[in-house]
């Protein structure tokens, strides 16, 4: 049941949210219980449901009409994990067969010992990852027990050096930008390595403290101003 809801969430969050264009794209802020549209033709998707002839919001957020489908996109609130999300997590426990991680979600995540890129014994586990260490990982599966992670792809693995901070998970699409354009611009201008987890955790590693602090400031600025007009121009200004 949770998986079906999560794959619907997948659809909703795949799109970039450009809140400043909400009027053109038939988007409006709705509160739970508010009627979004009336008519039998509409199909309620994530965050919406049908009551009789009406489509009603099931959460607070941005209601969007795309053809016949109506959904409510989350603009506040916790991270909703979906399969294949790239997230950053922190080790909270080392068990006999893997590592338990906090990814800022209500259930913890688990990285099996087999995911370690080289062979290690159970006694050597903390040498690879100890409590407080952080990784970039992909969500492999979501089930009743929790969330399973994998680091067996390029760009994934243990994070060394740099630092991590948090932004609201619903602001991540805006910080990443259309096809990564926004974060790409920041990386280029500050010469920093930046990884943005879908769970709102951000990792930065740069060559100088000044550039790292600048990159963080700009990311936080975007995150706090997602619905402001002319955001991209403001960011360009801040970067120059």
């Amino acid at each position, binding site marked *: 049941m949770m998986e079906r809801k999560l794959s619907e969430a997948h659809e909703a969050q795949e799109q970039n949210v450009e809140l400043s264009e909400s009027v053109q794209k038939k988007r409006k802020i709705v509160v739970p219980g508010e009627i979004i549209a009336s008519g039998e033709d509409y199909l309620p998707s994530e965050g919406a449901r049908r009551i009789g002839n009406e489509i009603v919001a099931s959460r607070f957020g941005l209601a969007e009409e795309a053809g016949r489908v109506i959904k409510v996109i989350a603009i506040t609130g*916790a991270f909703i994990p979906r399969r294949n999300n790239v997230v950053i997590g*922190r080790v*909270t426990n080392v068990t006999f067969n893997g590592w338990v991680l*906090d990814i*800022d979600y209500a259930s913890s995540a688990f990285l099996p010992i087999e995911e370690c890129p080289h062979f290690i014994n159970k006694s050597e586990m903390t040498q690879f990852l*100890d409590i*407080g*260490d*952080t990784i970039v990982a992909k969500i492999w599966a979501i089930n009743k027990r929790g969330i399973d992670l994998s680091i067996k792809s390029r760009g994934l693995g243990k*994070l*060394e*050096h*740099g*630092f*991590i*901070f*948090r932004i609201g998970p619903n602001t991540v699409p805006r910080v990443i930008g259309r096809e990564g354009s926004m974060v790409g611009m920041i990386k280029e201008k500050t010469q920093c390595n930046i990884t943005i987890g879908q769970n709102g*955790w951000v990792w930065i590693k740069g060559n100088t*403290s000044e550039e790292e*602090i600048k990159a*963080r*400031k700009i990311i936080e600025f975007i995150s706090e101003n997602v619905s402001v007009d002319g955001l991209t121009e403001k960011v360009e200004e801040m970067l120059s």
Partner: protein
Amino acid sequence: MSSMDASNITVDHMRKLLSEGKRFDGRKIDEFRKFEVSFDVSNKAEGSARVKLGKTEVIAGVKMVLDAPYPDSPDKGNLMVSAELLPLASPRFEQGPPKFDGIELPRLVDRAIRESGMINLKELVVTPGEKVWTVMVDLYPINDDGNLIDAACIAATAAIRNANIPGIKESGVSDYKNRTKKQIPVLKDCLPLSITFYKLGDAIFLDPTREEAESTDVKINFGLSHWSGKLMINSCQKTGPVPFTQEEIEKMMSILPEKYKELNERLKKFL
């Protein structure tokens, strides 16, 4: 924000930044964030103040209670400072009996104010040996973004300065509906303030954000005020299992006078 524990790389990075005298928000290591003080948080309180220090927010309320004096001080009123670290303010605070932070915070603020002598307790006597006022200050953090102690002390001092003494009914009971125009008797230039130094690695800094505070394991708190025109340290407590060197302590002594002066002037603007 649900996740509150710092990651190892972030702690290491913070240690490096601080040792270079740098911070994420661009402040200097001995720089306090901007703060705002507003009053009249509750019209049921004799006095109240709300302090916003960066994103840290604390409310202090003063209630005055008429009662018998303590047996060992029949000619004085009393002061009592309490605090509740409500789960409201941080995912770190839990329901239930206070943990150490919740026990320490009001005690540090209490000593800073008590030892400064700001409140003239002798003038809070209504009937000697029988009826005195107790000034009860209650502290409530509303949002914890680090340095609750210093913010709470500003709030407590401001709330006490904002308070009006309740009336007394014919029956001898306090009349909260009819407060007098009289304020709590205080030494006007006293203004007790708290300045807490935090240490990470070899770096010593002031007014941490929550993120910075989480990376440290030791702090040393000073309560200061003016007494007879001189700056006095009224209270001090080191908390945490890491030692301070004599040189570090002497360095703090050289920072305190100017820091107290600055905070004092900033607070005066609101009073």
